[in-house]
C-alpha cells in the first residue's frame, strides 16, 4: 500500500471521528424539537421504534418510520444534507454490498429473467430491500438520539433507568478522553505526513504504527494514573455523585402520547 494512502486513510478516519463528536455536541444544543425533550423520554421512545423496525415484515412500516425520522430531524434543526450525509457515510454502502448478492442467489420466484433463466428472484429483491430499509431506519433513529441529546444527559437518563452507576461513570469518562486520544493519534499521523518525502514500505509503516499505538497506550496509562489522583484529591471515595436535573414537562407527555400512538398503530399493522 502506498505510503500516501496509509497516512491519508488514517487521517481521514480520525478526522471524521473528531468532527462527528464536535457536530453531535453542537447539534444537541440547538433549539430544536427533540432537543427540548427530556433525555429519558428519548432514550425510551427512539429505540422503541428501532425494535418496531425489527418487527416489521414489509415495506410500508419501514418507509413510514424513515419519513418520520427525516421529519423529526428537520424539526430538530438537523440540516437534511448533514443527516443524509451521515447516513450514507456510516453504513448503507456496506449494507448495499451485502444486500446485492442476495438479489441473485436467493431461491424463489422469478422477478427478472434473462434468456429464460431467472436472474433476480422476488424473494431476493424483497430480502435486499427489507434489509437496506431496516438498516437505514435504525441508523436514522440512532442518529436522531445522539444529534439531539448531549452525552452527559444521555448518561443521566441511563442512570435514572438504573443502569449500574459504575458503568455510567466509566461511559462518561471514556467519552471525555476519546476526543483527547483521537487528537493525539491524529496529530501523530499529521506530523508524519508533513515530514514525509517519498515512500515507506509496508513493513516500515507497520512498525511506525506499532510505535504510534504504543504512544497512545502510554498516554492513556499516564492519564489513568493521574486522573485517579485528581479524583482522590477532591474527595473521591468510590462514588461519583451527580445533580439530577431531569424534569418532565408538558411537551414530554405530548411526545410520549404521540410516540406510543404511532408505535401501537405500526405494531397493529405489522401483525394484522
Amino acid at each position, binding site marked *: 500500500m502506498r505510503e500516501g494512502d496509509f497516512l491519508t486513510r488514517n487521517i481521514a478516519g480520525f478526522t471524521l471521528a473528531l468532527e462527528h463528536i464536535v457536530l453531535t455536541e453542537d447539534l444537541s444544543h440547538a433549539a430544536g424539537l427533540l432537543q427540548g425533550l427530556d433525555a429519558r423520554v428519548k432514550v425510551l421512545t427512539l429505540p422503541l421504534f428501532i425494535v418496531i423496525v425489527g418487527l416489521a415484515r414489509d415495506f410500508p412500516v419501514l418507509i413510514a418510520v424513515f419519513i418520520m425520522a427525516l421529519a423529526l430531524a428537520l424539526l430538530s434543526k438537523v440540516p437534511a444534507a448533514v443527516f443524509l450525509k451521515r447516513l450514507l457515510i456510516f453504513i448503507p454502502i456496506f449494507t448495499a454490498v451485502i444486500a446485492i448478492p442476495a438479489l441473485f442467489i436467493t431461491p424463489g420466484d422469478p422477478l427478472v429473467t434473462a434468456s429464460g433463466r431467472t436472474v433476480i428472484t422476488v424473494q431476493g429483491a424483497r430480502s435486499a430491500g427489507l434489509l437496506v430499509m431496516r438498516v437505514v431506519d*435504525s441508523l436514522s433513529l440512532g442518529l436522531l438520539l445522539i444529534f439531539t441529546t448531549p452525552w452527559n444527559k444521555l448518561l443521566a437518563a441511563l442512570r435514572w433507568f438504573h443502569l449500574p452507576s*459504575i458503568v455510567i461513570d466509566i461511559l462518561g469518562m*471514556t467519552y471525555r*478522553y476519546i476526543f483527547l486520544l483521537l487528537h493525539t493519534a491524529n496529530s501523530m499521523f499529521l506530523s508524519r505526513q508533513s515530514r514525509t518525502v517519498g515512500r515507506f514500505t509496508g513493513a516500515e509503516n507497520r512498525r511506525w504504527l506499532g510505535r504510534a499505538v504504543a504512544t497512545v497506550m502510554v498516554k492513556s496509562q499516564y492519564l489513568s494514573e493521574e486522573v485517579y489522583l485528581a479524583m482522590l484529591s477532591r474527595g473521591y471515595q468510590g462514588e461519583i455523585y451527580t445533580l439530577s436535573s431531569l424534569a418532565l414537562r408538558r411537551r414530554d407527555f405530548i411526545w410520549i402520547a404521540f410516540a406510543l400512538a404511532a408505535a401501537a398503530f405500526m405494531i397493529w399493522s405489522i401483525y394484522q
Partner: protein
Amino acid sequence: MHIPDGYLSPATCGTMYVVTAPFWVIAVKRVRKILNHRTVPALALLAAFTFILMMFNVPLPGGTTGHAVGGTMVAIVLGPWAAVLSVSVVLAIQAILFGDGGLTTLGANCFNMAVVLPMVGYYIYKVISGNSEIDSKRRLVGAAVGSYFGLLAGALLTGLELGIQPLLFHAADGTPLYAPYALNIAIPVMAIGHLAIAGPVEAIVTGLVFLYLQRSHSTLLSRQAVQRSEGKLWLIWSGALVLLAFATPLGLLAAGTAWAEWGAEELQELLGYIPRGLQSMSDIWHAPLPDYTIPGTGDVAGYIISAVIGIIAVGFLLWLLGRWISRKGSVKQGSSTSGVSKA
C-alpha cells in the same frame, strides 16, 4: 465484525442480550474486586485506548487493510474480565455515538467481540506461553496466535448468528426477513475474510503492542502471573464449551444418532419391539426441543441453537456450583469480622 441493526431478528437480539448479561455482571464484580477505587479511571482510559486502537487502519502485505479489535491484548494486560468490560464500553459508545454496530444488536456484538474474542484469545495465549519468561519469544507468539484465533472465534460466532437468520426468520414465501445468507454462505464468508485479512491484522497489531510492552513496560505483562488459578479453570471451561458449540454440527455428519440416545421409535426399528418400561416412561417428558430441533427450522440451525442454549444452561449451572463451593470454602477460613463480602 460489528453487526448493524436490522441484520438480526428481535428474538435473536433479545437472546443475545440475555446470554451476555451474566458476563457483564460477573465482569463488573471481578474488576471491582481487583481494581477497587481505581476501577473507573482505569477502565475508562483503557476503553478510550481500545477505541483508538480499533480505529487504526492497518496495512497488510499485499495491499489490503483492516482494523483490529484488540480484545486479546487488553485481556493479556488487565485480565479477561477487564477486557469484557472495556470492549463492551467501546462497542456501546461506537453504537450510540457513531452508529457503528446496532443498538439492538449490541448484546450480540458484545458477546462476539467482548466475551468470546478476549477469552478465547487469552486462553490460547496462556496455553502457548506456559511458564515462559515475560520477555520470551514464546509469549509474543502466544499473544499473536491467541489474538488471531480469538478474533476467528468471534467471527465464526458472528457468521453463526447471521447465518441462522434466513432459516429461522422468513416470510411465508421464503423471503429472508433479516440477514439474507444462510449458514452455508455466512460462515465460510466470515471465516475466509477473517482467516485471510482481519485475523492477520489482529495478530500484527497485538504482536506489535506486546513486543513494545515486553521491551519497555514488562511490569504490565507480569501482573497477570498473580492471577488466581480459579481464573484458569473458568477459562478452560469456557474454551472447551465454545469449541464444543462449534463442533456440534459435525455430529450431524456422523451417520445415525448418537449411541444410546435412541428415542422409542428408533429402538422399535432396531429391536423390533419397545421395551415396555421405556414405552410408558417416554410419554412423561416431552422435551421442549424434541430431537434437538426447533420446529420450523432446518436441522443444522436447530442443532446448533440447541447446543448453544444447552451449553449456556450447563455453564450457568456449573458457575453457580462453583460459587456455592467457593463460598462454603471461604466461610471455613473466614474470621468473625469478615461478615458480608463486598461486591
